[in-house]
């Protein structure tokens, strides 16, 4: 089977990263290590012929990721009982970049039409349910979802115009 291993790493790093961060928690400093372990294991298995295409590559990597996460959490629980955790301080350089991006996104949200801005406000900021948002605005719940989707598209376009893409490695 002809699988481009580099391509696999590039394609799946963000996906694995997203899944791992969700499972471990956003502030967990180990997430990058776990992601690397998962990717390395996947590559190994493909190289040694363990993966023969019985499932899709995506499912194959997802399975490895799920198992590794479960193991990590088990380990972590053991370790937590033994010693307190030490958190790494965030990189100051990353922080500046983060702030800039945040400011751009904030500005972009403020420029949205009230129709789209309001759903974001009620749904994500106020954290109302979709039905509650629908009731408040006097629209159908399906419309709420439509508007959130559309707002997201608009924001992506706005950010792209300022030469900053929304997508990329898992957010900081």
């Amino acid at each position, binding site marked *: 089977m002809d699988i481009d291993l580099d391509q696999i790493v590039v*394609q*799946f790093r*963000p*996906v694995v990263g*997203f*899944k791992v961060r969700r499972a471990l928690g*956003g502030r967990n400093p180990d997430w990058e290590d776990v992601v690397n372990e998962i990717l390395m294991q996947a590559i190994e298995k493909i190289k040694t012929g363990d993966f023969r295409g019985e499932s*899709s590559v*995506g*499912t194959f*990597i*997802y399975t490895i*990721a*799920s198992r590794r996460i479960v193991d990590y959490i088990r380990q972590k629980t053991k370790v937590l009982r033994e010693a307190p955790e030490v958190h790494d301080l965030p990189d100051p350089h990353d922080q500046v970049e983060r702030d800039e991006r*945040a400011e751009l*996104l*904030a500005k972009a*949200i*403020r420029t949205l039409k*009230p129709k789209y*801005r*309001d759903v*974001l*406000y*009620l749904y*994500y*900021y106020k*954290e109302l349910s*979709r039905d509650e948002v629908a*009731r*408040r*605005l*006097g*629209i159908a719940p399906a419309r709420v*979802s439509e508007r*959130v*989707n559309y*707002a*997201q598209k608009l*924001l*992506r376009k706005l950010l792209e115009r300022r030469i900053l893409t*929304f*997508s990329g490695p*898992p*957010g900081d």
Partner: protein
Amino acid sequence: MRKCPHEVKIDTYLAGKLGETESVEFEDHYFNCPPCFQKTYERNELMTFIRREGDSVFAAVPAPKPAPAKVSLWDRVGALLTPKQWVTAAVTAALLLVVVLGVAPRLHRTVPAFTFSGDETVRGETLALLSPSGDVAAAPATFSWKPVRGTVEYTITLASGSETLWTATTPDATITLPDGVKAKLAAGAAYSWQVKAYAAQGTLLATSAKTAFKVAN
């Protein structure tokens, strides 16, 4: 971009409300579907950002306008039919009204009258008085009238103006004036008499007109 059926689950998944089996299914899906992953990732970013930075983002922004007032009962009733149907209904109702109002008076006239004037009779039968009537040479000895079929009893009333002088009943279509009453009849004075015919159980069959007579001087 073709819409992926899993797209609708993104928010529920991100809120952690998808349930274990469905979550696994969803995750497996975005490991295999780059567009879905892209959307999920971006949505998560947006959601997290707003939650974290919402205070500053929305500080200078006007609050969402509340929904317009609930649809009134009037609006809801109005929405039952299309405008065209409402017009048809209104026209039909108007026509019905015209017909009803037009016919109703006519119906009124066919309602039978329940009060009698002197000339009217029950069942259309007239009780004709025969004599006396008009000028008579002397005080009448007898009163007679045309018999009415089915009569069990007749009642005769003799009056001077509104004052009843004498009344009697008889099964016959004639009756003799008692001497005592006859003697009271004065010459030149006007009198009137009337007969009513009754069937069994006192049912009034016919009433005669009041007939006047005068005894000659």
